[in-house]
């Protein structure tokens, strides 16, 4: 919070600095200086906002903050902020950006871990169901094979049974013929 307040104060200072500087130069500019000072104050405020935005974007991209090129007509020692204030502002913005980036990275990492855990659980469940289905299919095939084999063997047994019956009938016929023939 203290950083925010200080940053806000810095922003207002950055916006109001040139206005005050323009106001201080008002007597020097002579008649019509009021209009010039007012325009310079608004322009300075806008330029301050633009510079601040550019610095935030540069820090968010991870690029070094380029020194702001001052216009020749408005570059004066009274308008440019002191170097220690600029570096302090950059440090504050850099710290805030890093904190935001770290929070976003942690959130994304947590979400990715959660999604990965869900996908792993779902894949494990699918794999288990496939294994169960394969075991069930294997059991059904084995039972069908045994059933088919038993059926074939039963047919072979019936065929053999009738063959033995015909052989016994043939043996009895031969015995009867031999008995009756004498």
């Amino acid at each position: 919070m203290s950083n925010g307040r200080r940053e806000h104060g810095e922003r207002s200072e950055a916006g109001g600095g040139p206005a005050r500087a323009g106001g201080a130069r008002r007597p020097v500019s002579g008649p019509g200086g009021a209009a010039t000072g007012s325009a310079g104050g608004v322009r300075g405020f806008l330029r301050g906002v633009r510079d601040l935005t550019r610095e935030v974007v540069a820090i968010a991209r991870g690029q070094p903050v380029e020194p702001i090129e001052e216009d020749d007509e408005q570059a004066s020692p009274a308008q440019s902020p002191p170097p220690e204030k600029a570096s302090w502002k950059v440090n504050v913005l850099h710290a805030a950006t890093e904190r935001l980036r770290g929070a976003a990275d942690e959130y994304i990492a947590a979400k990715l871990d959660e999604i990965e855990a869900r996908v792993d659980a779902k894949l494990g469940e699918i794999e288990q169901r496939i294994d169960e289905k394969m075991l069930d299919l294997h059991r059904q095939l084995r039972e069908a094979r045994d059933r088919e084999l038993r059926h074939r063997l039963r047919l072979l047994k019936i065929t053999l049974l009738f063959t033995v019956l015909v052989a016994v009938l043939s043996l009895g016929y031969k015995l009867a013929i031999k008995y009756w023939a004498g």
Partner: protein
Amino acid sequence: MDGFDLFAFYRTTLFLFLGTYTLLLTISSVWQVVRLLAGPERHKEFLRTYVSYQLLTMRIRPVRGELLQIAALVALLGVVGYLHTLV
């Protein structure tokens, strides 16, 4: 017509007919199985492996009763055939 035995004719004809039918059916079935399993294709190789696995994992216990009955009938048929030679 001396020496013609109708039952012996029926028995010999039945044996020839059924023997020929069984032989042809067996050869046809074996040929079909060979045609089904032969070939360099991937799925036929897998099928050969699967049939080999099924043959190797076949269990005697579920069909043990049927096999014992068949063995007894074959032995009985041999005994009856031997008795035919004695009469």
